[in-house]
């Protein structure tokens, strides 16, 4: 579009951005407040609630539980998604559309439906409260995204290079790791970061299947529902900072991978 947007559209854009970013603008100052009750803007500033968070065993326990589960499920989901993407993109798959649809289904079915289904199954198997159960659940929820990100990266990588490596005598595994894997790495890392945060933020499945072994979102949820303690503000601030930095890196890697390939295509 060569038409320059009017002043009204520009102003409207920045108003909507302010609306979207409002939570950050509220939470960060709030977390540095010192009073008992939520009041915005805070009347006096300090690190009181940060100290409270870092010295509370239950909060730290849930935080480490969530980190553990997120790390495990992002590794598992990325591994399975990587294998699946190679098969879908390079295996001349029969029923490729159907299989892609299958892998996308956890993103389409409402999470509450999956949470309940898993809960009923877990009760039948006596598996409630097991971290392993939540790890596999979050891996399934991440699978549509790992398949999507890694498949679209594979589609842009020229298979000729790998074929050349095979002709030169490399085995299938060596050929893949020498020729394709290096240009796939940014997308794999980016997929892993996405899944990490799908798991780290996930509430409903954890709420149903984990019982009293609360993850960080479950703890926050319980707190918001019943007492609304000021500790939530620093936790939220740390979560937002952590998420924005990591997702920014993921997005940067994904874009860089796409750019490199389009430049390679041009030369």
């Amino acid at each position: 579009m060569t038409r320059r947007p009017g002043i009204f559209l520009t102003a409207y854009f920045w108003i909507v951005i302010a609306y979207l970013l409002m939570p950050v603008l509220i939470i960060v100052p709030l977390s540095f407040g010192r009073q008992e009750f939520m009041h915005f803007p805070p009347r006096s500033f300090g690190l009181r609630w940060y100290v409270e968070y870092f010295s509370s065993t239950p909060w730290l326990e849930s935080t480490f539980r969530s980190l553990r589960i997120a790390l495990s499920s992002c590794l598992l989901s990325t591994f399975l998604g990587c294998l699946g993407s190679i098969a879908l993109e390079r295996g001349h798959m029969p029923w490729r559309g159907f299989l892609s649809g299958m892998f996308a289904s956890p993103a389409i079915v409402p999470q509450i439906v999956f949470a309940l289904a898993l809960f009923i199954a877990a009760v039948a198997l006596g598996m409630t409260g097991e971290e392993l159960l939540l790890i596999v659940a979050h891996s399934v929820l991440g699978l549509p995204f790992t398949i999507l990100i890694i498949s679209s990266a594979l589609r842009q990588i020229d298979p000729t290079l790998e074929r050349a490596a095979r002709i030169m005598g490399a085995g299938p595994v060596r050929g893949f790791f020498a020729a394709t894997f290096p240009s796939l790495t940014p997308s794999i890392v980016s997929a892993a970061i996405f899944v990490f945060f799908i798991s780290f933020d996930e509430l409903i499945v954890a709420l149903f299947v984990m019982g009293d072994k609360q993850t960080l979102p479950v703890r926050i949820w319980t707190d918001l529902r019943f007492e609304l303690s000021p500790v939530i503000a620093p936790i939220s601030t740390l979560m937002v900072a952590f998420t924005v930095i990591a997702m920014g890196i993921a997005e940067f890697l994904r874009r860089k991978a796409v750019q490199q390939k389009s430049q390679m295509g041009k030369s």
Partner: protein
Amino acid sequence: MSRSLSTRALVLPGLAFLLVVFVVPVLFMLKVSFTGETAAGDYFSRFFGSGAYFSVLITTLRVSVVVSFLTLLVGYPISYFIYSRPERQRPVLLFLVLVPMWMSVLVRTYAWMVVLGRQGMVNSLLLDLGITATPLKLMYTTGAVYLVMVQVLLPFMIVACFSGMSEIDHTFVRAARILGASPGYAFRRIFLPLSLDGAVNGFVLVFMLSMGFFIVPALIGGPKDTMMANLIEIQVEQADWGFAAALSVVLLVATIAIMFLIRAASRRFTFSLAEGTRP
């Protein structure tokens, strides 16, 4: 050929995993919902026979449709603004839209509770300025649910509309302009119908996500804003899993059915817009 076969086999671990962890539990839940019976008959007649339960489905549908329209209305001009900027600026502007999308919904809802509460930001501002004498009731209202849900879902709509717009072949618009169409006419008859694909994708996506919303209605809405996901959670808390399973089936079927309806309706609408049979 053997190479292709061994490559194909790589799909098996992921597929097996998906079947065991996702497909089998969902199918088992379907079975539970259909075979279970209570004293008052099966679960589905209990749901459709009671006005109280059925009205939760209606609320869920209403909220989802309203939120989808609102995000489209607010988001489409934003996508158009980003699209109309020089190509080098676009990633930065899109980044500003994406950042809020990455933040936990729980955290964003919490921020809104601080803003809208009885002693929240809006109320203390209004009281300090002397605009109202008593705090307004902002929390636990349907309006607040819309406000927060639109904020959470808006980035999805903006990204979907924008990617629809970036696929438009701009020579069509230029051709219309050369043939004498005013900028507004070229926008309405050429650009708008072509950009509608992205808008429909965004609408379907936002609708689908709204139908399963849980955190926002529970924390921001009042009792009359209870949605299907909340009702399911209440049943689980009361250990009535069979009825919860039936509610899940209703939610799933309603979501998928309406998605198909939107797709079918939008195709006819786009067509008539491009034909000019609608002003």
